[in-house]
């Protein structure tokens, strides 16, 4: 009786694995795919090397005037000379440390939120949302503890961009959640107020809102009342974005099955408790992409404040470009602006993706 000897494992054909296999399945799987691959390769080879040459190889990095730019590539000297203004706006140079301190403080406060075992996350989060803005405001505006007062009109640059964006996010998110709940309420008055609010703010362009807040509003206020321009811009942006946020959150609420509400009710949870513990955690998780989308749009929309005479980072770059000493370097200036905005927006996007992964618990249906 002969015994069975199994065949030895053969290695797979060379055309299925390794570099050739990968190329074959991913880049040249069909004629249209092959044509696209070749076309894309052409575009990359045509644009990338000149770009790298301009931005890095032939670029000038050090110096203190345009005379340093002789290599024919990008003149980053323009950015480095003006860097402080791009970051701090017209804030007095001797007081930069106050902004830096506020920046370091927020980083130090946020880090514990990412520590898995940290137990006071809720209290710390509340402090960041309520206490920190007050601390930062006092630090920026001064006038107490011997700090030199700095008017809000001198706040500017990336600092202003970040202030507007974070205030906008922190205010529009809770407001949006309340509006979304209001719009789904069975109480007719709450519902109609929410609908009118949302539809009004969604129906007007942000630029109009800012313009109204800065030019029209003072006309209606009693003579002599001073209402800070920056504060008005913040309120305008927050109300405007909260309408968008409300609709994003409402989308999430609609995706929650009725059974979740019923189970919460059947356990005796009150409306607010079932919202806070059962419905919102699920609904908000579903709409993380939409929320981050709105935040990213908000971040970039802050540049519009330049029409009411606030100098955010983009406005500072524009102003620097108008300087006769630096005429003709707009490509460098705008590339730098684009890069900074991209870094912030891309970080938000990556953070949202990691958050989605972390909160994924498998789905029950």
């Amino acid at each position, binding site marked *: 009786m002969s015994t069975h000897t199994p065949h030895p494992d053969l290695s797979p054909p060379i055309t299925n694995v390794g570099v050739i296999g990968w190329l074959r399945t991913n880049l040249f799987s069909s004629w249209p795919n092959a044509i696209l691959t070749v076309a894309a390769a052409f575009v990359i080879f045509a644009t990338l090397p000149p770009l790298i040459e301009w931005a890095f190889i032939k670029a000038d990095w050090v110096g203190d005037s345009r005379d340093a730019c002789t290599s024919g590539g990008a003149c980053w000297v323009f950015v480095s000379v003006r860097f402080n203004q791009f970051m701090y706006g017209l804030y007095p140079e001797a007081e930069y440390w106050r902004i830096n301190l506020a920046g370091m403080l927020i980083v130090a406060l946020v880090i514990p939120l990412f520590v898995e075992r940290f137990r006071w996350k809720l209290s710390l989060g509340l402090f960041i949302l309520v206490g920190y803005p007050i601390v930062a405001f006092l630090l920026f505006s001064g006038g107490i503890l011997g700090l030199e007062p700095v008017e809000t009109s001198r706040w500017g640059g990336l600092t202003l961009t970040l202030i507007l964006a974070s205030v906008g996010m922190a205010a529009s998110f809770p407001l949006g959640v309340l509006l979304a709940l209001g719009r789904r309420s069975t109480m007719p008055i709450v519902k109609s107020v929410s609908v009118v609010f949302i539809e009004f703010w969604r129906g007007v362009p942000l630029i109009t809102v800012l313009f109204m807040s800065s030019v029209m509003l003072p006309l209606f206020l009693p003579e002599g009342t001073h209402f800070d321009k920056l504060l008005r811009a913040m309120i305008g942006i927050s109300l405007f974005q909260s309408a968008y946020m409300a609709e994003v959150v409402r989308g999430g609420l609609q995706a929650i*099955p009725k*059974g*979740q509400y*019923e*189970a919460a*009710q*059947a*356990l*005796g*949870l*009150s409306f607010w*408790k079932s919202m806070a*513990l*059962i419905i919102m*955690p*699920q609904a908000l*998780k579903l709409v993380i992409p939409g929320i981050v989308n709105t935040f990213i749009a908000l971040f970039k929309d802050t540049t519009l404040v330049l029409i009411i005479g606030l100098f955010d980072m983009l406005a500072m770059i524009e102003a620097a470009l108008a300087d006769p000493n630096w005429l003709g370097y707009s490509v460098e200036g705008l590339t730098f602006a684009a890069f900074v905005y991209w870094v912030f927006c891309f970080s938000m996007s990556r953070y949202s993706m990691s958050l989605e992964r972390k*909160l994924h*618990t*498998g*789905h*029950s*249906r």
Partner: protein
Amino acid sequence: MSDSNPDPAVSEKPMIELRQVHKWYGQFHVLKDLNLSVKKGERIVICGPSGSGKSTMIRCINRLEEHQRGQIIVDGTELTDDVKNVDQIRREVGMVFQHFNLFPHLTVLENCCLAPIWVRKMPRREAEAAAMQYLEKVKIPEQAKKYPGQLSGGQQQRVAIARSLCMNPSIMLFDEPTSALDPEMIKEVLDTMVELAESGMTMMCVTHEMGFAKTVANRVIFMDGGEIIEENEPEEFFNNPQSDRTKLFLSQILG
């Protein structure tokens, strides 16, 4: 009644009373003049064709649905628009749903502890210990740290039962607890329910599991078209149905 019902778990005190209860969905009259009294410790099985109003009836008992005429009295408290009464009753009444309705973003243990902590104001440790006890009762303590999405349907339904029990209810309502389950998982859920019945819990159960009705029910109620057509002890109900509609239904369901 106590002569005809020798079960020692059943006392004379009525836990649930329905008096001339009517309900409409718009123009549609779903519940028509329901009268029913459930005593403490009694186990009622409700059956009937789909759309007969049986789920609606038990959902009225913890006011997931509102009735528009008549009275519903649960453990001495009448269900009215008064939110306090509703909250009071929901604390006393546990409910198990056809589709489990576990909270997918919370672990099994968190599902069980949530209401005791937030509604009964129980300290977290105590709530967790109690929850583990109930999870052991339904025989899945080892799944406590998992999320509902990682469990089978039968396991999820047992967690749902444990979740309700954690509120220490005096009445349990079951709305077709096994009809969304694969056949091989029905038994494990029914076993849990039988055990619960043996512990003396007052239960109202909408189900088509006639075996379950025969073993644990004190009374079987047959509903059709929003009305209670027939009401009897299981033996009589199955062997000697009175109305033609009951006979038709039983012939269809028992094959």
